[in-house]
């Protein structure tokens, strides 16, 4: 079973992203939802996830600060990460990929776009393949 952390300050966004992930192939995953980057760091240190999905604009600790903290942490470095944000463009995507992000998806996402991004993330093992 895959372990997925979703970081977004909006419960609406978290629920919507979760449904897209489930439809895209992670129906049996265990999801942990958090409201900011600080909470994401705490839960990921407790249990390293197979996938982090994060927003950029969040209170207390934003997505970029979270990604920089992960890049600097041997324990969290390399976790497959997908950014889902309304603030994306080619220049921002490039900056995020330099921080180790594998996929950047603009809001609003949909299951088809998420499923396509799984190819870049390489998180789908045989047990998850449809």
């Amino acid at each position, binding site marked *: 079973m895959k372990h997925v952390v979703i970081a977004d300050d909006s419960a*609406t966004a978290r629920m*919507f992203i979760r449904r897209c992930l489930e439809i895209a192939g992670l129906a049996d995953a265990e999801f942990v939802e958090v409201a900011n980057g600080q909470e994401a760091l705490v839960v990921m240190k407790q249990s390293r996830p197979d996938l982090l999905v994060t927003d950029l604009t969040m209170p207390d600790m934003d997505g970029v600060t979270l990604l920089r903290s992960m890049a600097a942490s041997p324990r969290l470095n390399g976790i497959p990460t997908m950014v889902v944000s309304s603030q994306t463009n080619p*220049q921002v995507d490039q900056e995020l990929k330099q921080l180790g992000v594998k996929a950047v998806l603009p809001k*609003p996402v949909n299951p088809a776009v998420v499923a396509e991004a799984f190819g870049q993330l390489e998180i789908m093992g045989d047990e998850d393949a449809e």
Partner: protein
Amino acid sequence: MLNEAKVVEIIDQSVMSVLENMAFMEVCRIEEAPYSTSILDYWAKVGLLSPLKGEVVLACASPLLSEIADTVFAGEAAGEAALMDVVAELTNTIAGNLLSKLFPSDESIRVAVPEKGRRGGLSGVHELYYQLDDGQYFCVGYHIEGMRLEGL
């Protein structure tokens, strides 16, 4: 120079995309509010921080917000907090899309965390109205510092 017609076009596209993706609702823009805006009692406001300053506001009536929340949460949560959260997320998405599409090669695009409230959120903004097939409507307002409200 920023073109206001382009701003409106991007907001139109973003509103239609977000409602279709999140709530399976089709909307179209209408010229004026079909009935009193006093019913649009839930609002959220997202500040545009960089590379320009301004704000995007979305105001919506509780029955429409409840329908959207029921779709997103599959009927699990439709209380006051859920309605506020839905209107904030819709506004955040529209505001972020606006900057992303206006400035496709600028890495500094940034919006604020949404503010939320009840009643009176539409003051000082240019208002755009959107309607569903069943007659329900909502308003998206915007203000961009230095932009004249003409040329539409």
